[in-house]
């Protein structure tokens, strides 16, 4: 906003308007967000409020990205890397022995108290593919596509409780209030299909992630960029049909009238939240036409259902994975999947690394494998990034809750080392980066932090994570805060 406009704006702050704002209460807030500027430095993208147009319009990143879209599969609860990818024969030998003091001194765990015993790997491991990636017998399908994957074997975080760790992984900060990765990406790139939301969230496993909906919230970014959660059973989007006796034409007329009124209001107040409202109404109208087609997995051919293990009559993870492929195929920018139930402490059969974890793998292995292969054959894997991981890892120790051994075999939350994998454009395929010590307790080389992963994802999409900022409360914010290094070792 130039000086002249600013003065004009101030002149409009009449006593009458002031009183009106007071009665409206939130007027002051509107004014403050009007002053906040958007736009990332070093790019031609303009302040959204100045654009006055569609906030979801596609925008150019800083440089041509290797990928255009992301499917992020977050296994909420944190899968055990020691049963899936990080094979530790030495740990096997120490099974049942007392944990060495060096693992406990000065460390804090979520539940382990006292001195626990070590717990050997419960799965059997083999090497697969030309790359020789090590994968356990819990994942018989994924192991067949080992050469498509890029493993990060020594990821570390600094949170050992679910909610803050999930927030850190998704928003770059362990506390509430910051935009998640999907919001940043849609804010930066917009979306190419105007008839669908740019950022879709699908949950499964019976629960939302522990951090709640904040993990797909837009934080301080305009709320148009928050994730749109779709239901995984029944109609994916509620109230998508017009009520009885309302025709599509009359719906259109009423939304147009509403948009006009909102536009007037926007011209007066320049509050980007009004633009959000306009575009949400328009999107909802367009979605009435497209959603029944795109979101309906029932129309997919039988062999596709067999490949994914999906079933339109149930509410299962595989349906979400298939839906994710359909959405990405139609140009949705960011699809975030959360599957709940990976927290294997050993307090119940379901939450154990030798029983419950096996069943979680059985629920998800086939569909995730199918997703990679299906994207590949459709020519989409080159321009899509698939990320798989939890919010932290699990301890090489058997969990001793309050000093007593848990009834089932289980592992506590572990922040020092865990495995994630990615697949898609711009990555070295069939590559493994990072290594943990003999016990799988901590990374000994190729350690990467949560912010490193975020920096790398942004890089693949065409953003320099240090330049991609949003000004809020007087300072420039980044997804990676003040951290993050691009993991260039895994880039093709």
């Amino acid at each position, binding site marked *: 906003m130039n000086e002249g406009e600013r003065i004009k704006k101030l002149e409009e702050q009449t006593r009458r308007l002031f009183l009106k704002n007071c009665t409206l209460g939130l007027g002051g807030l509107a004014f403050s967000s009007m002053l906040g500027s958007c736009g990332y430095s070093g790019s*031609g993208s303009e302040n959204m409020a100045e654009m006055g147009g569609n906030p979801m319009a596609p925008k150019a990143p800083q440089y041509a990205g290797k990928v255009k879209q992301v499917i992020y599969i977050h296994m909420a609860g944190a899968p055990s890397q020691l049963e899936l990818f990080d094979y530790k024969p030495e740990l096997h030998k120490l099974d049942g022995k007392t944990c060495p003091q060096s693992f406990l001194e000065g460390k804090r765990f979520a539940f382990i108290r006292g001195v626990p015993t070590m717990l050997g790997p419960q799965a059997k491991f083999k090497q697969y593919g030309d790359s020789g990636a090590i994968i356990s017998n819990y994942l018989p399908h994924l192991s067949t596509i080992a050469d498509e994957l890029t493993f990060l074997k020594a990821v570390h975080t600094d949170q050992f409780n679910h909610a803050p760790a999930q927030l850190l992984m998704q928003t770059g900060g362990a506390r509430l209030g910051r935009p998640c990765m999907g919001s940043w990406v849609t804010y930066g790139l917009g979306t190419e299909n*105007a*008839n669908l939301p740019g950022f879709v969230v699908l949950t499964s496993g019976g629960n939302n992630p522990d951090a709640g909906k904040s993990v797909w919230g837009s934080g301080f970014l305009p709320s148009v960029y928050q994730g749109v959660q779709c239901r995984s059973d029944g109609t994916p989007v509620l109230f998508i049909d017009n009520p009885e006796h309302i025709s599509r034409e009359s719906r259109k007329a009423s939304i147009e009238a509403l948009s006009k009124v909102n536009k007037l209001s926007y011209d007066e107040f320049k509050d980007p939240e009004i633009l959000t409202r306009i575009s949400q109404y328009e999107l909802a109208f367009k979605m009435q036409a497209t959603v029944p087609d795109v979101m309906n997995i029932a129309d997919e051919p039988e062999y596709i259902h067999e490949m994914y293990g999906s079933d339109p009559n149930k509410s299962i993870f595989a349906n979400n994975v298939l839906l994710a492929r359909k959405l990405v195929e139609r140009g949705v920018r960011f699809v975030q999947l959360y599957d709940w139930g990976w927290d294997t402490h050993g307090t119940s059969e379901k939450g154990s690394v030798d029983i419950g974890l096996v069943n979680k793998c059985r629920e998800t292995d086939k569909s995730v494998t199918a997703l990679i292969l299906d994207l590949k*054959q459709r*020519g989409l894997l080159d321009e899509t990034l698939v990320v798989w991981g939890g919010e932290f890892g699990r301890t090489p120790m058997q969990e001793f809750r309050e000093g007593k051994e848990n009834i089932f075999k289980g592992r506590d939350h572990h922040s020092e080392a865990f495995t994630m994998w990615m697949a898609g454009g711009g990555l070295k395929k069939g590559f493994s980066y990072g290594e943990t010590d003999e016990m799988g307790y901590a990374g000994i080389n190729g350690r990467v932090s949560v912010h490193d992963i975020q920096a790398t994802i942004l890089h693949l999409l065409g953003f320099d994570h240090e330049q991609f900022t949003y000004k809020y409360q007087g300072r420039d914010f980044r997804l990676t805060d003040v951290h993050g290094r691009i993991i260039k070792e895994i880039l093709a």
Partner: protein
Amino acid sequence: MNIFEYFGNFHPLVVHLPIGFLVVFLLLGLFIPRQKLIDAYSIIRLILLTSALFATASSITGYILSISGSYDQEVVSNHKWFGIVLTIVNWIIYFKLDYLLHTSIRNFRLSLVFVLVMLTVTGHAGGSLTHGSEFLTPPPPDQWLAFGPKEKRKITMSSTALEATSIILEENCYACHGRSKQKGELRLDSKEAILKGGEDGKIIAEHAADSRIMELLLLPIDDDDHMPPKEKKQLADVEINYLAWWIDHAMNEEKTLEELELPDSLHGILYEEEIQIINNLVPDKDVKEADEKALERLNGLGVTIFPIESDANFLSANFANMLPENITPAMQELEKVKSQLIWLNLDYHQLTPEAWTALSKLENLRKFSVRNTNMDDEFLVHLSPLKSLVYLNLVDTKVTDEGLLQLKELQKLESLFLYQTMVGKNAIASLTQMFPLARIDTGNYFVPTLVSDTTIFHK
């Protein structure tokens, strides 16, 4: 450390008190008329007494600190003697103040000048001791207005091993073990000095594993002997590993890291070059800006068209939001931006023959997707002039092996997707010959259903 040495540590604190009082004395002496000074005689005496007492305390604590021995003796000696002289002069002025003010104002002025000079010289010597001799050296004039982060020496594969070591040590160790300070009588700013060791003896052994320096670096941070001290900036793991590697390579001086084959795991010490992005989907050389009117018309027709990167003029176009009746005019309009247009997506549309014909003009296309369209062998011929194509997606169209023969001039093709087309698996061999660079994918992947996929595991 005994109790005396402990008092020595208070020197940097106590030393500032006499400085302050002497400055007050100087200001009064230089700017207040003599008569007024005589009126304030008792106050001035009090100021001088205080400064003299603290100066004495500073001399004593300073002397204790100097014999603890971790300083450059030459600079210490200057500072020590200046300080002692200043203290004595201070006492003299205190006892002779009456005489100086009443009888010899000239000597009074002289004493002021002397104090001013001694204060400056002593302070400077002291400052050089604590912060290093270059601390107060002004930068060369051409850098006076250079703001922003300062340029660091960079380690690259062509740095010699000794250079790399000195860059790491300079950043982390020289402040206490360099030219102006030698804590523990140890200097690390030359290879000879490193070999010599400090007051506890040698720090380097034949192998890194036996070297005292590695032990000190690797001790837990809470250990009193750990280096650098807990509150100072710590070395990165990779820097410590590099030092060990360097010791094990006989502390090589001349060879470059390249020649010594620096292992991958130590590449973390190298200066990170900006990441080079190799992307064959984008030309190296930028083009001029696209015609704005053409862009407006395309937007009006519903084409989603936007730049691929913020600082270049290349365009990507997507027909995802198009109404069927606008497709043909839009395809024809695209010719106006053909030099900029490098990515095009026509997925899920049925195009008229005229629209397909317009395709042949878009000769700069690098990435082209026509999934699920009415593309067939007849229309495929319009692709043959698109010699820059790198990515071609023909999934879910009616093209056949024979139709693809029309594309044999597309020698830059790197990815060709043929899932759900009439192209059979057995055509791959001949296609691979035709497009030697290309990854050809006919898809039809399948994930078999295992018993375990549909059953629940129990023990």
